[in-house]
């Protein structure tokens, strides 16, 4: 199901399938969504559990979609998404309203997933951290004899292949790729979640995409 179809479905019945708030296009919509989040947080802190239920309904889908792709297992992702909401609920009193609520929530999710990777001894170092300041092994310029890899697949086939190779790329690259292209966050938001400079985030997302392309070639 593509995004426009999902958006139409959400418009018909917004409560049944809330569409990710951060994918709304206009600045006005974003601001009103931010204000709405802050009000819901305030109400929850005052003891209104129903307000937190609305937060869950709003963010469960985008959060599960991102965490699911990061850990690659449905049951585990469901458990993690629940834990992230519980952690968020118990830390609501530390939330500072000058920051965007969704960014704060995704930061909690990111830390949770990283802890899981560390416990599982999955390498959480990015390519540049592992290989030095400019250690990406991706080509920076277009090669004269560059082959067509992606265009050899049908779009539906390409989606399936991307899902497969996503599990094989290093965890830190996978994470930023998911935040950027699946959750559709801005580079600035990802930089805030990861506590990294925007330029570093851009480079990591670029490395992730080129690595996916390279792996697609191997899987052809």
């Amino acid at each position: 199901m593509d995004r426009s179809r999902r958006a139409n479905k959400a418009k018909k019945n917004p409560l049944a399938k809330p569409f990710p708030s951060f994918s709304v296009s206009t600045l006005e919509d974003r601001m009103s969504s931010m204000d709405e989040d802050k009000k819901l947080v305030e109400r929850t802190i005052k003891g209104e559990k129903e307000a937190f239920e609305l937060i869950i309904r709003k963010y469960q889908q985008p959060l599960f979609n991102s965490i699911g792709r990061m850990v690659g297992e449905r049951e585990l992702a469901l458990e993690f998404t629940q834990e992230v909401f519980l952690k968020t609920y118990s830390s609501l009193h530390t939330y500072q309203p000058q920051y965007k609520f969704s960014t704060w929530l995704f930061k909690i999710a990111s830390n949770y997933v990283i802890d899981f990777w560390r416990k599982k001894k999955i390498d959480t170092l990015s390519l540049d951290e592992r290989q030095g300041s400019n250690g990406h092994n991706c080509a920076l310029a277009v090669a004269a004899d560059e082959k067509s890899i992606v265009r050899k697949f049908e779009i539906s086939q390409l989606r399936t292949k991307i899902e497969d190779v996503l599990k094989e790329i290093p965890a830190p690259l996978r994470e930023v790729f998911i935040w950027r292209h699946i959750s559709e966050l801005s580079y600035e938001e990802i930089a805030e979640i990861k506590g990294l400079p925007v330029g570093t985030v851009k480079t990591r997302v670029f490395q992730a995409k080129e690595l996916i392309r390279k792996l697609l070639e191997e899987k052809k």
Partner: protein
Amino acid sequence: MKCLGIEQIYLYIEKELSPARNREIKEHLAICQKCTNAFEERKLLVKAAKSLPLWETPPEFTRQVMARIGPVKTLPSAWIKAAAAALASISVTLLVIFLATGQNLSTLVLGLNHSLWNYVRNFLPVLLKLFKLASLIFGVIQQFTGYLLKAFSWLKALTSLQIQLTISIIAVISIAILIYGIKRIIFIGEKT
């Protein structure tokens, strides 16, 4: 313009570049087949990634999370914090005095209580008198301001702006002379 870097191609696809740089790249793509191929390749990759199927949560997800949550933690209010800090400070002070002097703790508490009562007994009448004086001054000022405002409103309603200004200046000068005169009388009184 030389051929494009791959990262630039991605940023161009994602509309992350300045309008000027976008224009340059667009112009370059119109004349360079190699970069156009690379651009089409990456554009399709991004398009496919953005349209991956959604992982949907089960319908009972919200209910399951809500069943696991307890009452939300709230920060203690400023008054509670201040009271706790005061209590802790008094306790620490008492403990230090107790350790330094070796006096009985109950004697110390009784002594502190006695001193506190003395302070209250001495300062309370003064405090009450000050409060009475302040309320009197406040009443006088309030009444005076009321008359002043009423006078201004009459003045405004009755005469033109020039006459208003003249009357206001005369009133200010009269008040200044009055204050000066009172001051002189007081000084003369002091000299005699």
